[in-house]
């Protein structure tokens, strides 16, 4: 019996480990719809209390930067060292700075 390839869409799963933390990508899964994706994600990625909140997003809804153009894409930040606090020389004896 042959079935259509990947008959269920791919979802990416993000889990908030505990209150106060960001959701972090943990992996992916296939599910027929959003609701089932959420339930499958619970069973697959939080069997040991790994999370307090889950996001699921259809993989094709994600827009990603391409690794090939990594250098030019991130270049605008490369030469702006003045955005970092360590760029500025302040005498040691100035308090609270």
């Amino acid at each position, binding site marked *: 019996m042959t079935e259509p*390839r990947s*008959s269920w869409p*791919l979802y990416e799963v993000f889990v908030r480990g505990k209150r106060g933390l960001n959701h972090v990508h943990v*992996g*992916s*899964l296939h599910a027929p*719809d959003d609701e*089932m994706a959420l339930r499958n994600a619970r069973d*697959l990625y939080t069997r*040991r209390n790994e999370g307090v909140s889950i996001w699921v997003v259809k993989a094709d809804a994600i827009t990603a930067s391409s690794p090939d153009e990594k250098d030019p894409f991130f270049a605008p930040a490369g030469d702006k060292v003045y955005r970092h606090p360590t760029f500025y020389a302040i005498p040691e004896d100035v308090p609270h700075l």
Partner: protein
Amino acid sequence: MDLEREFERVVAADHRIEPRDWMPDGYRKTLIRQIAQHAHSEIIGMQPEGNWISRAPSLRRKAILLAKVQDEAGHGLYLYAATETLGADREDLTTKLIEGRQKYSSIFNYPTLTFADVGVIGWLVDGAAICNQVPLCRTSYGPYARAMIRVCKEESFHQRQGYELLMTMMRGTDAQKAMVQDAVNRWWWPSLMMFGPPDAESSNTEQSMVWRIKRHTNDELRQRFVDMSVPQAEKLGVTLPDPKIAWNAERGHHDFGDIDWDEFWQVVKGDGPCNAERIENRRKAHEDGAWVREAAAAYAAKKERVA
């Protein structure tokens, strides 16, 4: 050419290759083959132990066994997901497994005859798997390494529950102790075979080491496993079925006897005790589940039309 140099630089620097990076075709193919085989092993591996869920001797043991088998399913899914980041398709891999075009670990072609086998699988089979898998947490392909980190965390529960089960039986009646020894006798050699053929005959090892897919050779990992298991067997009070096991102070390792590689190849090629049964069960589960997958997809399509 630049892309290839960049790939080699990242791998040599022990950094990770990520899904959308350029990679050589051979690297991609090797990874898909290895990760799929690993995923299939987890899925087929549910069967030997699943065999004892309905007959576990207590509710406690049943709950533990259920959790363990559920973990194996989870491990299979993490790994199938990792293959999909390489362009493989899970449905297609399942078909290849069912049609015998892709392999799984030969260890799961041995039967689980008594409940002691559940304990020995946890101790020795999962122990050998951990030896194999811990170095893979640092494998060069990011999604594979991350899947292995999750798997290893969960495997340590598997190994400890197995050892604890055996300790409990070894405190029991003579019949129970004999059952444990019998299970150890049957599983010891197949566990050593889990590390694959000797280095001299392992066709994929060299390239996989360069690509840092593999971090240690089969023989290195097998030796590590023997060294770990000898004191554990002593503590448990069982005898490993190999009279040649002896500490070799010069090497700083245990010597051990020759593995029956004819048996290994026979099982790999499909003539193990349970090969046909395992695949048949997997096929049946897949086909019997077809209507559920179709119904869920139809429901999703209907909701989409209404919305």
